[in-house]
């Protein structure tokens, strides 16, 4: 422990983690945390829990727009590749078909649509989740096993502007208070977590 503390010279508090034993109490507690006015908080679950997005106030993911855009790019580039190679770069008469044989170009254009859309969705999903990030690990092994947790985050180390609206900052963070509050909502245990270089 002493070594660790030395390594990160100013080990800064990242937030307080409260553990829950089942998904239902997690959702109920998440609602309370949000009602209390906390804005910077997140939940950790071993599997996707339905209803948690609403409780946490998360909107719909924007990924479908990425997929749609990439699909359009895939469709047009797949078609243009075929058009350009078959009708522009080296027009070749194959079985008397027109150089721009639209029906024959459908299958490949379809496949490139799917290919581009799938690859873009995957990359976008990783980027928005800030993955890959090998410094990250679970706060506790039980969080990928059978327990759930809420993290109430400490305010960022940056200077807070005077005119920043309250809805962005949320309820001011007090370590003791947050831990007490999590206990009150049904957390079976609480734990302090520190910045280790993987938070933004």
């Amino acid at each position, binding site marked *: 422990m002493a070594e660790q503390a030395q390594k990160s010279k100013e080990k800064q508090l990242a937030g307080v983690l409260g553990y829950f*034993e*089942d998904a*239902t109490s997690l959702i109920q507690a998440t609602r309370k945390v949000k009602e209390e006015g906390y804005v910077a908080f*997140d*939940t*950790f*679950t*071993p*599997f*996707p*829990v*339905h209803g*948690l997005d609403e409780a*946490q106030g*998360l909107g*719909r*993911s924007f*990924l*479908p727009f990425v*997929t749609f855009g990439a699909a359009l790019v895939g469709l047009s580039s797949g078609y243009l*590749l075929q058009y350009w*190679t*078959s009708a522009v*770069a*080296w027009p*070749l008469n*194959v*079985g008397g*078909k027109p150089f721009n*044989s639209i029906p*024959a170009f459908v*299958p*490949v254009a*379809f*496949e*490139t649509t*799917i*290919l581009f*859309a*799938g*690859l873009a*969705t*995957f990359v976008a*999903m*990783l980027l928005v*989740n800030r*993955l*890959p*990030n*090998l*410094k*990250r*690990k*679970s*706060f506790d*092994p039980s969080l*990928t*096993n*059978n327990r759930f947790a809420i993290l109430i985050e400490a305010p960022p180390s940056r200077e807070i502007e005077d005119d920043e609206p309250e809805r962005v900052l949320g309820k001011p963070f007090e370590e003791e208070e947050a831990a007490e509050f999590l206990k009150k909502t049904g957390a*079976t245990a609480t734990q302090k977590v520190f910045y280790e270089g993987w938070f933004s």
Partner: protein
Amino acid sequence: MTTDSTRYQPEVLVTGGKSYEDVNNDVSAPTERLPNRAWWVCFIAALFAFSVGAILAIDMFMRGLGVLGINQPVGWGTFIVTFVFWVGIGHAGTLISAILFLFRQNWRTAINRSAEAMTIFAVMTALLFPLIHTGRPWYAAYWLLPYPNQRELWVNFRSPLLWDVFAVGTYFTISLLFWFTGLIPDFATLRDRAKHPIRKFAYTLLSLGWRGSNRNWSHYETAYLLFAGLATPLVLSVHSVVSFDFAVSIIPGWHTTIFPPYFVAGAVFSGFAMVVTLLIMVREIFNLKDYITLNHLEKMNKIIMATGLLVGYAYICEFFIAWYSGVSFEQYAFINRAFGPYWWAYWIMFCCNVIVPQIFWWKKARRNIAIMFVISLFVNVGMWFERYVITITSLHRDFLPSSWAMYIPTFHDWGIVFGSFGFFFIFFLLFCRLLPTIAMAEVKSVMTPPKVALKEETK
């Protein structure tokens, strides 16, 4: 349970009163201990089969395609048959993971991981064959990929063979992404369980730093849904495009519009049979009977029977259309299929694919491990012969009797086909050892929540 008024009792998907922790322990166990004897026996057998195929393939590359049975007019032999066979096998995984996901069939969670793995390895195996079939696989990239080159030549985009390159290539890529995305949370679980530094390092890399944050889950779930939406038309397109390899030509017996749906139904049929074959072994060897239950297998068997009936309908429909068309070449092609020199192949196909699965009308048969195992093997054999019948009988007698010939596969043909099974099983067995064979995170999300509160009190 939630307090809303619905009193819907969900189907019990995991038996044995398992808790979330049990899921982790049971599924991770095979990756955390040394393999048992059954695994080693299978692995050595697979290595042996693969070496036989590899040695014969190298011999073939050195001596030329003359060592095979292909001739004029039968230019497509067992390699193309086996290519179509393996691509077909590869359809079940994405069907289970994508189409059943869109239909909210929660029972898929127990089997989707291994079915997807099977898909990926089957497509890898399939991809070997067109390359081997060229006889000079190291030149294949020149012919298959549209890349700028000094000859300023481009591939022929009007050819179904090229559509195949794009279809199977895309299918492989998207299946791999879909599979890997599903694995990320489970890699995180294995990482958090790992004790050995090498294991810890490997699973840390593979998990990409997944931590189970719900902000991440939210995007992850959306991406997963999008993958399912993309993979659904893709899986239907792949075997349609494979069938175009045949249907776009003018050979009697190939030039039919029924081919795309007929091939897709056959692919799902053979793929599900292979999934049943593999799952029966996996649940037995790794003791996962509480997760892959008889209910799961019964549902699989129902799909096998339904798609088997579709395939049987296609066989009969082809005959009807040949008669109805009034084209003598088309009529002869089908008479020749069933009663010509390859009658035995046709009737093996017909019995294995249409008659044998009818036993699944009986619930007892659908729920009997021994019966379903034997039937899944029959279906695998039958579906290989289906492709044999389609490819060989149409080619060996087309329009002009002067250009008719017989096709007899040689030792090299059979040996390389045998080797492909070794190739497939090497990957599948390694998968069983190194990766979680059941999607832990997904199973946890569909199982009945364990009574945690009671457990806490007793602690």
